[in-house]
């Protein structure tokens, strides 16, 4: 278990607002392209990653730039091509493999959690698997129970893979750069709602300032997305956008909300959680994944273990334990919407 370190965790600063603004999807593509230019061992593989450019635009333009030898469309054989990525990584290549939707892990999880994640350990550290498994998550657009799940808690539960979940273009580029350069397997989970796609409702925060040069956002480090003193919202991915919107709205009423963007689920930045909750004494976890047995409980346990008796409020806004419904009103009844987050904050501060 992590203990609270004596020095405050250094969190990277918010990016300088540069002139150049990119959507999250373009930021991801730029990170991959830069690493492909730098390192010939990097290649991209998956379903519809070539001419289509990725169903959620995570590989747009890469085929034109790098050709079919390095941007490779696969058959719909997730077990075979994820396994292929593992073997190529074992031999020193650096595959970026896309699993079209995280929901599809059921047909290929053995390669992911028994092979990709365990080979380094089982080999006593003698074999490395420097691979990125990138996958789309999340709902909010009526894609139903098999195409709308977040599932990061499921991946993060299983040891041996790092799990990163960006919320914005700056982090998306920096985390992808770090993931490709990492010698560990990294599961890179992007919410469709943060990509800035033209064909899906989007929050303005899905387009933002992104430096041109390559840079890394460190894996395992959360970010204080908004400083505040009354209540800590610990959250990630699209829910960061909603939480910031709510925080800005409530600031006008004198409620000062701190928003922690986890950015990485595994390894979890427990120090950042503890530091924030030590300050505010109130914790709300906002998570679009299923509520029970997952990330929200882990965050609360982290705070409770470190600050026994130090918590004035604990609650969570997550998907109650039901499959994601299809009908819009039903779906929005279970997602962590701004309205649910706002109600939780008001309750936390006693309004």
């Amino acid at each position, binding site marked *: 278990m992590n203990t609270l370190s004596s020095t405050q965790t250094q969190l990277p600063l918010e990016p300088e607002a540069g002139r150049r603004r990119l959507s999250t999807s373009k930021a991801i593509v730029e990170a991959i392209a830069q690493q492909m230019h730098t390192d010939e061992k990097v290649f991209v593989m998956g379903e519809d990653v070539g001419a289509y450019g990725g169903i959620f635009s995570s590989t747009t333009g890469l085929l034109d730039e790098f050709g079919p030898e390095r941007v490779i469309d696969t058959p719909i054989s997730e077990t*075979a*091509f994820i396994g292929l990525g593992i073997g190529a990584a074992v031999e020193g290549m650096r595959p970026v493999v896309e699993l079209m939707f995280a929901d599809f892990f059921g047909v290929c999880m053995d390669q992911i959690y028994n092979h990709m994640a365990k080979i380094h350990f089982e080999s006593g550290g003698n074999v490395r698997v420097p691979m990125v498994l990138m996958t789309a998550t999340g709902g909010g657009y009526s894609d139903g129970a098999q195409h709308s799940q977040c599932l990061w808690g499921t991946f993060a539960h299983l040891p041996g893979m790092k799990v990163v979940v960006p919320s914005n273009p700056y982090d998306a580029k920096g985390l992808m750069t770090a993931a490709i350069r990492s010698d560990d397997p990294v599961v890179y989970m992007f919410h469709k709602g943060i990509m800035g796609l033209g064909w899906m409702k989007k929050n303005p925060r899905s387009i933002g300032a992104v430096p041109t040069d390559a840079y890394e956002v460190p894996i395992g480090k959360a970010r204080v997305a908004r400083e505040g003193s009354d209540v800590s919202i610990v959250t990630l991915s699209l829910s960061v956008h909603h939480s910031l919107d709510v925080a800005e709205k409530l600031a006008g009423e004198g409620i000062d909300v701190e928003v922690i963007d986890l950015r990485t689920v595994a390894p979890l930045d427990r120090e950042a959680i503890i530091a924030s909750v030590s300050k505010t004494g109130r914790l709300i976890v906002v998570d679009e994944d299923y509520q029970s047995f997952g990330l929200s409980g882990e965050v609360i346990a982290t705070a409770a273990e470190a600050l026994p008796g130090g918590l004035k409020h604990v609650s969570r806004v997550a998907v109650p334990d039901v499959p994601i419904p299809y009908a819009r009103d039903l779906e929005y009844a279970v997602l962590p919407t701004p309205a649910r987050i706002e109600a939780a904050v008001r309750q936390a501060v006693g309004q």
Partner: protein
Amino acid sequence: MTVQSVLSEKDKLDLLRMMVLIRTFEEAILREYHADKSPGFDIGAGLVPGEMHLAAGQEPVAAGIGAHLSRGDAMTATHRPHHLAIAHGVDIRKMAAEIFGRETGLGRGRGGHMHLFDPEAHFSCSGIVAEGLPPALGQAFAFQRAGTDRVAVAVAGEGAANQGAFHEALNLAALWKLPVIFVIEDNDWGISVPRSASTSVPSNAVRAAAYGIPGTRVEDNAVEDVWAAVGEAVRRARAGEGPSLIEVHTLRLWGHFEGDAQGYRGDLEGVPGRDPIPTYHKHLSDAGILDTATFTEMGAAASATVEDAIAFAKSSPLPDPADALKYVFTEGARS
């Protein structure tokens, strides 16, 4: 590269020598495994704990493959991996140490007998039936992309040929003409389930046709026929002609795992007579290639190698429980 299609007398003796080495290793593990599990049988007890799948009887497959592979070639094996590891040149001392769960083992005692990884030999295993096949594709892909003629051999049991991973792997390997040789060890059994109750076709070799690649079945556990079939498949793969599928009708001489009473097995009576080592020994003796002194020397050399490895394992330190959390991640080091 010229391709050898005829076995010399020395090659034949080498095949037998490899089979003897493998059997000697498996017999030594059998001895050590059972040495301290009594009274009764406690699978988790003793110097060698856990499930133990030994490959006695399947030596011809390993010897016939190993003879064609060089240092840079890759192999992925199964839950029953020792014979393949030995024939592929995995360090036998480190392998024994891993089986004994020692810090000097291939995986520093973190892997165990079903999870042997030797990066120098490009050797790995999987304990999940058929799931060792897809990573072999990636090794072959890396070799192909690097412009080498290196190949990957992916081995699975006949039970594994009914898994989805097997079919996905064959399709993709064929589609991308990857230098892979798929070898199925048909030992008639998937634990207690006979092949007739698991497999819709009499020979898995016919399944190759579904992917447009050559399929061959080797009968009678015949080591020279394995050698010939693998030789052609390796030649094809090295020449860029893509993957092949070979099924070998082999023999599980012992139980599925140690402690298996094999009450389900009606063919047990005939099993000893099908042991491939006496069979090939006799074949070479009858042909005038092998004399008693040479065979005795093979056994002695194998014993020396194996007992040295067992002694190395037993005298090696156990992992420190304080290190139980190590090796989940690479801890920042970059290559």
